[in-house]
């Protein structure tokens, strides 16, 4: 069995199963935990609406912190959206999902996806460098932070190398790209990348808690 056969076959198979298993496991486990019941009267009667409002308001920086955190927000938006576009709208990726799901969707032209992937990779590398070289960020960063960024960056990097047939043989690049995706799938449910599931609910819970106490968050 060649490296590509392994990557296309057992590696993606097991990574996919572990990904789904881990995501369902952790999601159910977290949502089944008991919530603490309030010990005082609510100071707001529209908690649901305000909780939802907090979910959306956190997508942009708070005015008071705008100068300090805008770069982080913009960079985050760029690479998250770029990653999604490349994942879902690159022709070859659409073929992958079509092979798995039985249906596909229109893709973007390769030149556009290539440009977006390049920008996404650049931003991710910049953020990784910033985390390494900024003393404050370095101080508060853990293994989970570095590994999650690197494991997210690898598929973009190897995908670009595969697309351009850069360096080594295409089948080796394609195999490495698929293995990097397998690594991402396995790492995803058990790392900070799981915030894909927890981000919005936790914002909602936080918003409700604040508004209940009269804090307009």
């Amino acid at each position, binding site marked *: *069995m060649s490296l590509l056969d392994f990557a*296309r076959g057992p590696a993606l198979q097991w990574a996919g199963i572990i990904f789904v298993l881990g995501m369902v496991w952790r999601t159910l486990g977290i949502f089944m935990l008991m919530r603490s019941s309030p010990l005082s009267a609510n100071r707001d009667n529209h908690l649901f609406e305000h909780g939802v409002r907090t979910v959306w308001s956190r997508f942009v920086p708070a005015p008071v912190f705008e100068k300090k955190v805008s770069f982080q927000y913009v960079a985050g938006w760029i690479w998250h959206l770029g990653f999604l576009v490349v994942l879902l709208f690159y022709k070859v990726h659409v073929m992958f999902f079509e*092979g798995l799901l039985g249906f596909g969707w229109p893709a973007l032209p390769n030149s556009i996806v290539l440009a977006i992937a390049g920008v996404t990779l650049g931003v991710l590398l910049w953020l990784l460098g910033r985390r390494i070289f900024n003393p404050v960020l370095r101080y508060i960063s853990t293994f989970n932070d570095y590994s999650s960024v690197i494991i997210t960056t690898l598929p973009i990097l190897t995908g670009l190398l595969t697309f351009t047939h850069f360096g080594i043989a*295409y089948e080796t690049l394609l195999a490495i790209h698929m293995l990097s995706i397998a690594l991402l799938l396995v790492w995803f449910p058990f790392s900070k990348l799981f915030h894909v599931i927890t981000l919005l609910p936790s914002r909602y819970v936080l918003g409700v808690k604040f508004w209940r106490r009269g804090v307009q968050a």
Partner: protein
Amino acid sequence: MTTRHVPLGERMQARGISRRSFMKFCATTASLLALPPALAPKIAQALEAQHRPSVIWLSFQECTGCAESFLRSNTPSVESLIFDTISLDYQHTLMAASGHAAEEAREEAMKANWGKYIVVVDGSIPTGDMGYSTTAGESNIDTLKHVAEGAAAIVCLGTCSAYGGIPLADPNPTGAVSVQDVITDKPIINVPGCPPIPAVMTSVLVQFIAFGALPELDHLNRPKVFYGQNIHDRCYRRPFYERGQFAESFDDEGAREGWCLYKLGCKGPTTYNACAVLKWNEGTSFPIEAGHGCLGCSEPNFWDKGSFYAPLATATHLDTTELAVGALAGAAVGLGAGYAGRAVQKRNKQGPFEAQPGVQPTAQPDPAEKEKS
């Protein structure tokens, strides 16, 4: 089929082949082998002076497609001439002799050219029941070992002899193996393909005859000059791949426009061969040009790498049923973990406070002592 010591140049003249045609062939061969043009006269000189090298062609588990591809050119070519100028002392399909006479011819050729003859093999070798494939009562593996003993080199013609090919495909009922699985002490050149390109075969023979040396080989023992690049990199449809223009089916507008066949399962990006450059039928066409994706026939285990019509970007083992099973397993584990977590939460709420392991209570300073200080 006996060895005649008449130089090639004389035989060509006898057959009415002009010197110009011969030199053109030598120049083409030098070009195919990526040799400097200055070596073309040396190739001609070597071939002219060369006595017919003895070739013993062994056919095992095969379909004769490789031999057909090599021999059945519809017009005589200089390539067929060079084949005619080797001493083909043994070949089941072509030789006039049969039965014991044929086997005796092989033995005679081996004795007369011991250590110098070339063995060409097409077909894989069964290792299961020896009765699967025999010649004159002798199993293929015994014949191969016996004939290879006195060979100068072995040329594996076609994917079956090079890697086991279709006979080796799952479930491999005959226990088929390749030549290099059996013979490990002789130089082996693999010329894979189903079938291989005739010009590749003749060029390999010419290099061996002219220079007495094997061509440079890659990690799979294939001549680098022919198998150094993948088909995709030299495919005339490559620009469409770059632009993301793919045929969706074999009869849609994209297919008619000649767009890339990647989406229809073309294995060109992972297949190393010279098909896109040398082509078949005297350079007329090759499978992709005829409208069908590459099957990857010159790569090991090409038959067992998933559907020919599944794009390379797709997973071969993953499907939604397995993911659903994974989700169910995850739900079971998640529910278990959730209930366990709730139980711990309840116990913590009901019971007295207990310090977490490893947390030491900090001593509070006496206020009176603090005031004094």
